[in-house]
């Protein structure tokens, strides 16, 4: 699936998007998998309360299932307006 990062999450991880092969069943499992991979992920995901997640471009929670999902995005709380 495609994993996208925005704002300071993108800066900490060092790229805006990547393809990830995963069997993670939920967003939380994907986060754990990425965090175990490299420090920069662990740092970006260290405080999940400071992050928001969208699955297939809809805001959701970290316990959201990933079956059939094409795109997951991680970002800080939004600051529009």
């Amino acid at each position, binding site marked *: 699936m495609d994993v*996208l990062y*925005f*704002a*300071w999450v993108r800066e900490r991880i060092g790229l805006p998007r990547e393809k990830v092969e995963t069997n993670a069943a939920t967003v939380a499992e994907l986060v754990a998998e990425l965090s175990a991979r490299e420090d920069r992920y662990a740092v970006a995901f260290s405080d999940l309360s400071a992050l928001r997640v*969208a699955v297939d*471009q*809809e*805001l959701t929670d970290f316990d959201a299932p990933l079956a059939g999902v094409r795109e997951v*995005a991680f*970002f*800080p*709380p*939004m*600051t*529009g*307006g």
Partner: protein
Amino acid sequence: MRVSVQEAPFDLGRESAAFAAGHVDMGAIVTFTGIVRDLPDDPMQAMEIEHYPGMTEAALTDIATQAMTRFSLGDALVIHRYGRLVPGELIMMVATAARHRKDAFEGAEFLMDYLKSRAPFWKREISANGAEWVAAKDEDEAALNRW
């Protein structure tokens, strides 16, 4: 109803006039415009706005559709820019048309409250001291509770 996510500036007068034209059954038009505000203690060189192409348009369309239904609006407009802006530039505008002013005002406030914390935009302020992401405010999240 129209939603536009754009890098280019918009003409507030022309957008407002075009929105107001042709609504013979709507007695009230409300417009709100957001402007890049300079920082008093740390003069801003620019504000950079990042967004999530695709999701941004979908989120704004969803918010505007909810406002149309909830406040019986005859029409709604949301324009939001992204990219590099300088103090004094217009960031965004919303406009609502309703039969009566209460719905037009409330519809515009609802649009603003939701697009502040539910539309995927992120602002970064750049000054001589460096660049900093704007943090979301608790009060912006709390503002959603009144709807």
